[in-house]
């Protein structure tokens, strides 16, 4: 049995594929079979079933009943669905750029040859190792409105600042209500206030940017040093080197993180599920949470599958948009 290269050279000097023997083909299929079986059973089959159930009334306990587009039409009238969709769009729109900018900034800083570089890198990566559920519980306590460390540390700062601002407002002739409000400046009730809960969840999304930072860092280290030297010789400053060397060279990595970020932000679940359960007043009800609630808590598998299909479509659309735009700004060397 030939174990050499599967290519051979013909008379014209071109390499052509050697016909694969049946035995080799069978061996190849056999080795790939576990993976293919896994993909078929755990990916393609569930996906197909989800598509089918999205057109059915299905509670898991009774046979599915075909209802056509009813589930999809029902979503249009479902206010919770609209709320979850809007919340997720807001979250994705805020968290994605924030995560990319923060992690890129941190990666650039961590790439600087400074003392204790390894320690700083470890510190940044460490939170990614903490399970998000555990992090959610800890942050829940830290942000507790009565006994939380964040409010405890912030209260005297706000009290002093409020006093100063009140004095200034009073001097400027502001109304009594304004002055009193400034005097009573206090930390918000982070997770119990519908106006604050969403920003808190967006901010806490930064907790696990360690992995994105590491990917950026690897990308930064792949940039040839000669390019920086050439740019320096041409008189480029630090910002110009960042704009004309680092960002273009890093664009494939940025693109990868963008795609992963789009997918991740549309699937946000753990932190809000642990910390707010979608409240207060549905202000942190995200798409995946609503899918879970409809499917697993209310046994409405039809609408849950329909929502999952809509989610898949949105993610595919955004990914396609990202790929389309990539032609203009991603540079592969």
């Amino acid at each position, binding site marked *: 049995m030939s*174990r050499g290269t599967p290519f051979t050279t013909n008379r014209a000097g071109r390499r052509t594929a050697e016909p694969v023997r049946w035995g080799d083909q069978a061996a190849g299929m056999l080795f790939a079979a576990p993976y293919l079986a896994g993909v078929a059973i755990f990916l393609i089959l569930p996906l197909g079933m989800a598509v089918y159930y999205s057109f059915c*009334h299905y*509670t*898991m*306990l*009774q046979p599915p*009943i075909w*209802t056509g587009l009813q589930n999809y039409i*029902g979503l249009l*009238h479902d*206010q*919770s669905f609209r709320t979850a969709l809007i919340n997720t769009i807001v979250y994705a729109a805020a968290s994605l750029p924030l995560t990319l900018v923060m992690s890129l900034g941190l990666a650039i800083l961590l790439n600087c040859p400074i003392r204790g570089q390894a320690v700083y890198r470890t510190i940044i990566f460490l939170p990614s190792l903490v399970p998000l559920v555990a992090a959610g519980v800890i942050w829940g306590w830290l942000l*507790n*409105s*009565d*006994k*939380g460390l964040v409010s405890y540390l912030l209260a005297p700062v706000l009290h002093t600042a409020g006093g100063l601002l009140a004095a200034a407002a009073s001097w400027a002739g502001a109304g009594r209500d304004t002055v009193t409000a400034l005097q*009573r400046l206090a930390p*918000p*009730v982070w997770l*119990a*206030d*519908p106006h604050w809960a969403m920003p808190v969840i967006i901010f806490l999304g930064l907790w696990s940017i360690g992995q994105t930072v590491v990917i950026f860092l690897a990308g930064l280290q792949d940039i040839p040093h000669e390019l920086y030297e050439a740019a320096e010789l041409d008189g480029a400053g630090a910002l110009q080197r960042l704009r004309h060397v680092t960002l273009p060279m890093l664009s494939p990595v940025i693109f990868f993180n963008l795609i992963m970020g789009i997918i991740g932000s549309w699937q946000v679940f753990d932190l809000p599920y642990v910390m707010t*359960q979608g*409240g*207060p*007043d*549905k202000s942190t009800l995200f798409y995946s949470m609503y899918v879970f*609630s409809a499917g*697993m*808590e*209310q*046994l*409405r598998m039809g609408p849950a599958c329909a929502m999952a299909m809509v989610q898949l479509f949105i993610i595919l659309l955004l990914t396609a948009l990202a790929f389309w735009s990539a032609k203009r700004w991603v540079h592969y060397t």
Partner: protein
Amino acid sequence: MARLHTAFSIWLSRITAICVVAGGVALLVFGDKPTIHQLPNGQVVHNRVVVSYWENWTDFEGRAMMHVVNAFNMSQNRIYINTVQVSDLDIKALIAVAGHDPPDIVTLWSRDMGEYVANRALTPLDVLEKQGVVSRRTFVPYVWRLCKPFHHLYALGATPETCALYWNKNLFIKAGLNPDQPPQTIAQLDSMARRLTLFNSSGGIRQIGFLPTIPDWSGWEIMWGIYFGNHLFNRRTGGYQINTPQQRAAYRWYQSFTRRYGRANLEKFQGGFGPFNSPLNPFMSQRVAMEIQGPYFANFINQNAPDMKGRYGVAPFPTSFGRPGAAVFGDCDVWAIPRGARHVKAALTVLKFFIKQKNIEYLCDKQCKPSPLMKVSRAFIRRNPNPFIKLFEKVTKSPNVQLAPMDILWSRVYSELHSCVQHIWAGHSVGRSLARAQRVVDRWQVNLAMLNARQRGERP
């Protein structure tokens, strides 16, 4: 070099293959040991039917149930109960039924019954009624209503939980109130609550008289309408009564707390509450003077705040339309056999044992709850560690107990109402919020009716 590389590759592949095969054999030989079931006396169980039982009690409540289970396992040599403590049991058991691998017995809450029965997830237990093991006279009325919802017996009552008002006598005395005189009406409750509420120098709440968001168990706050004369579910018409004058009155009252004290102030105050079953519970830490709770609360007070013994009182919760106790919110843990259970006969034998007066009374005694049975022994009343057991026995037997609606849509309605109440708490219009929830639920009911008609082959 290339030959050496090829030889090394072959050697590595063979070693890997040998390791994989050896690992597989080792797993088969050592990995799949059958579970050994042991009796409390250490004796290993052989040749018995193993009945799997999923239950949701933990800690001392779980130990009480284990005592009954052990008593059964020791009482005969045919059946062994394998108890598994499961969190979120209601959801997991449903999924197990859907996956055709359910346990033989489950403990459910009353709020799950409608969904389980409507989805045919339970095995009817009518045979027990035919055999004369249970009848309408066995259980207190509301428990029987719960167990036999649609002309079939689907469950057996385990431990009932009817709610009452707990008040802290020490705080009453400090506020200049009569410690032996609980409020008789909602208006009195409000006025006493005002006197019992204290603020700190910065205007924050230090102690509150009463707060309708406590206990903060998800969903409890949707039942307040009961105490204003509402019946959330009309059993005659099968419709939900969400936007009724009584409901609007209840949720205006509910919202009045945020208007009176400020929502941010209340949220900040509530942020300091610890878990229900800890000494940081607001009632046990004396931050809340009055609270609605079930009979089991006495057990948690005994465990976490023994100093409070004798310093708190319990009375039927006041209503806006009549005497206290004219409406009572009740719940009950029940035992049921899921559809598709493998050992139905053995499970029935187990259930017959569980509901023997002696065993039920042991369980309810250890959980500080009243008995679900009509017939109660004097010893049970005498030795029950709940000092207010007589009151709870009376409340449990009352015809005024209202349960969560037993309807297929209930879990969905529950979730909608929970959001609606949060919306009201956030300061939105009570009338509009309830009207919207009513519209949404009505639409669901119409859709369900259409779907059922289609299922029956009728034109919707």
